[in-house]
């Protein structure tokens, strides 16, 4: 017995439904995949380069020599690339502590330890509200970072961001 040849038959209502469903799908896809509307007038600017400085806190004295210009730093939590090292400066490691006797906060030097001011350069995306590097890591002064370098680990706050070229 021969099988009947398959024929696609659409009645009027099926046709209307199909057209409407396709139109809705195209509209939703266009909105979802198109430029983000954003809130409050944010406008993303094409990728630029940012220079910022991270304070690696309380490293053992003498170990800052492990850090070399050109090292790639990566966020150790979510693996965002934070940029490449452009300069390294070692300073005494200090901590703000409460002196309960004299009732004041004082900056205290930690013996045997050093802070390392590492300046990093990275491609970034700039909006009115934030600067992001590595495709999604927002940088801001006072933001605490957890870093994996080339053979070393570090943590500490971002202490400065150069504004040149970002305004």
């Amino acid at each position, binding site marked *: 017995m021969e099988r009947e040849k398959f024929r696609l038959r659409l009645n009027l209502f099926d046709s209307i*439904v199909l057209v*409407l469903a396709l139109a809705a799908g195209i509209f939703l896809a266009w909105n979802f995949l198109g430029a983000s509307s954003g809130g409050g007038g944010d406008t993303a600017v094409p990728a630029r380069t940012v220079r910022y400085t991270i304070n690696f806190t309380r490293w053992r004295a003498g170990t800052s020599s492990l850090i070399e210009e050109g090292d790639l730093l990566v966020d150790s939590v979510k693996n965002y690339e934070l940029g490449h090292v452009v300069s390294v400066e070692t300073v005494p490691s200090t901590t703000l502590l409460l002196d309960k006797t004299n*009732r004041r906060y004082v900056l205290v030097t930690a013996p045997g330890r050093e802070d390392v001011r590492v300046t990093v350069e990275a491609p970034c995306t700039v909006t009115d509200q934030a600067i992001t590097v590595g495709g999604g890591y927002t940088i801001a002064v006072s933001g605490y970072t957890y870093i994996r370098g080339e053979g070393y680990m570090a943590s500490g706050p971002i202490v400065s961001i150069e*504004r040149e070229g970002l305004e």
Partner: protein
Amino acid sequence: MKLIDRNGRLFGKISVIDVLVLAVVAVIAVALYVKTNHRDITSTANIDTPITYQLQVEGARTYVADALQEGDLIYEQERDTGGSLGKIVDIQRSEGTRFTEFDDGTIESAVPAEDCVNLLLTVEGKGLISDSGYMLNRVYSLGVNSARTLCTKYVNFVATVVSIMP
């Protein structure tokens, strides 16, 4: 005539499945229309009343204070602010202090802090003023004594609203 015939057609004319799909598509279309036009309606409302307020930043490290400059726009990280909360128009610096509780059961509100700075930021924003208070950008409630974690493009900081001057 039966409501649904043996072929699943409503009144023998249109498939029940087709009716359901049409209904879903219609709901989606209406929702998109309302969402799109709702923004247009609110955008024509007057939200341009200037609101000037002051923020106090207490005991911030010097490198944090240095990252705040006049002209920077302020946002809050954790809430929908409807855009910028305003522009910093003035910054006053003074010696840094911190509110501190001591183990001897005493509290001091202004303990001197080395390498720290107190800041008084004057911010100009826009919003609504009503009997119930101040709303920046129509969505962000502003009130004296509210402490928030705020940010600019360059820095995160904690500040308290200390005065509002409409």
